[in-house]
């Protein structure tokens, strides 16, 4: 089957005041139709930048060195602004991290919802209004009528995020990219938003890329998980495999650092963390970028960047899985 989205050999550079920042190092990834891919990584691992690359919405100091982002065979990265506009908000939509600042504060929800519905579905008048109400109902908002007449600041964070999701669904997109959709809401709302995404996923035909720093969140909804570290995907595999038979030492460290209820005797123990810090990408470590923090680091890790190794159906970028060892 043809994949819906294919990222091939992606390489970006950012020119910053401190120097050149090299990202993705020839990253490749593919996403099937109706698939949910979780992208997990620390802040600064490039996961959000990857999301913005998919719709070619990059800051002015970013340059695409090489690579393709193919949506059903069409290369988004080589598209003109006009073509991009036909894809953005229609075939690919986004849900953002902070819903409280993602809605225009001076317009009522009604105005913003109707614009989206009219622009993308070509509906008018009462039909458009009905459609907007229906969308709000689908994201399980109580009393959609009064929500329509509210201004964004009158809604809670969870409600705002539901509105954002409703807007993302409006055009029946093929792909929704959710950039940390649950990071700025509290834990109960986070669970609700996740189960809403799961429910919508079951009802409708879209693929989802879920970007999050929490491997626990990614586990909830994803079919596959990609673990990113310092601008590279270090492990990519099915959810069960990544969670249960994790391969990369970084994935292992991430999984260990999930807080879980423990017995009384263990309470005093510190929560395990990944030692060290995310490397500065302007002068990244030689070889494998994780080696300074890796408990299993070997000589070769410092010298050479590991290729992807195929193990148990997962891809892993780590010398531990080299055949020659």
């Amino acid at each position, binding site marked *: 089957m043809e994949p819906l989205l294919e990222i091939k050999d992606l390489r970006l550079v950012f020119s910053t005041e401190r120097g050149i920042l090299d990202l993705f190092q020839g990253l490749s990834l593919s996403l099937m139709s109706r698939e949910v891919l979780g992208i997990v990584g620390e802040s600064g691992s490039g996961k959000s930048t990857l999301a913005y690359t998919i719709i070619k*919405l990059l800051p002015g100091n970013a340059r695409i060195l090489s690579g393709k982002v193919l949506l059903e065979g069409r290369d988004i990265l080589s598209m003109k602004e006009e073509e991009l506009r036909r894809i953005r908000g229609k075939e690919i939509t*986004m849900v953002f991290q902070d819903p409280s*600042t*993602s809605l*225009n*504060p*001076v317009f009522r929800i009604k105005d913003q919802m109707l*614009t989206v519905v009219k622009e993308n579905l070509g509906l008018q008048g009462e039909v458009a209004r009905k459609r907007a109400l229906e969308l709000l109902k689908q994201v399980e908002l109580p009393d959609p009528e009064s929500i329509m007449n509210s201004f964004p600041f009158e809604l809670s964070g969870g409600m705002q995020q539901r509105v954002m999701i409703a807007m993302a669904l409006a055009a029946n997109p093929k792909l929704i990219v959710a950039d940390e959709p649950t990071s700025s809401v509290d834990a109960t709302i986070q669970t609700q938003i996740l189960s809403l995404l799961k429910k919508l996923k079951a009802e409708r035909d879209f693929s989802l890329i879920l970007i999050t720093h929490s491997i626990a969140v990614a586990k909830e909804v994803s079919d596959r998980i990609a673990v990113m570290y310092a601008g590279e995907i270090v492990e990519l595999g099915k959810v069960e495999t990544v969670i249960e038979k994790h391969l990369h030492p970084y994935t292992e460290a991430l999984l260990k650092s999930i807080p879980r209820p423990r017995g009384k005797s263990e309470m005093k123990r510190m929560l395990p963390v990944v030692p060290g810090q995310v490397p500065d990408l302007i002068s990244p470590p030689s070889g494998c970028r994780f080696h300074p923090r890796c408990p299993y680091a070997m000589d070769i890790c410092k010298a050479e960047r590991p290729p992807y190794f195929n193990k148990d159906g997962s891809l892993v970028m780590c010398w531990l899985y080299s055949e020659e060892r």
Partner: protein
Amino acid sequence: MRITDSPRSDAWGFFRLLHIIRVLSRDKLFVFGVTVVLSLALLSIAAPYVSPYTSQGYGEAAVPPPSCPGVPTEVAGVCPPSLLHPLGTEILGRDLLTRILFGIRTSLIIGLFVVITATAIGLFVGITAAYIGGWVDELLMRTTDVFLSFPHVILALVILATIGPNFYSVFIALGAVWWPTFARLARGQALSVKSQNYILAAQAAGVGRFGIIFKHILPNSIAPLTVQMALDMGASILAEAGLSFLGLGIRPPTADLGVMVFESTNFITTAWWYPVFPGLFLFLLVLSFNLIGDRVTQYLDPRLAGK
């Protein structure tokens, strides 16, 4: 003080404005300013319908000139306040109150026009600079700096001396010198709006350049400019009166407070009412606009909060 001095100015929105108006309605000076401005505006709008001397308001001389024996200024038709002329009459025997009300019309029209033109140009320049950035930003903002480096009135004088004084020249001259403050303000606001998430969200939703500018940046950039408009109303009315006083602004027969004060200079020692009343109304009008702007500014300045 400009409201750009306030660190809170980028946290502005329509609702903050509404909230501020509600709070300020309890401020005596603010209410005084609003009341004076509104009543003067209403009076001047109603002037042609209530004044018995409407034609004089439009510039016709009084025929025959009023006579007031015993007053040394009678040659010129300048008569002291009486029942028929509550504020006295002026050089052509016209009713001073009527002339003043018509003069306030001129002031308000010019003030409004200047401020609206300045806001429009300022928004255009500021938002263009902020949105496009780079060399366009540099070019537009440095041009703005050039304009700002001249005092408003001096630059307006130069323009008026070049194109010649008449009713429309005043509009053009003052409009042309008044926009830079607004451009700076609009640019600052647009820059902060531009970095907001909803702009990114709109871009991600496929909204085009014009949609971003007109639906997202513009409506969110306007609020702080409305306060600057109130502040600058007084200043531009005063500037217009000053230019007219110097003979480079409004020309007779159009009624104008500045022109009236100028004409009265020959009568300062003999007819006190002639310079005093036009000056008093000009003072009241400008004071009220400044009070409105000042109270709003003070409210916005966190350093003065709670005082």
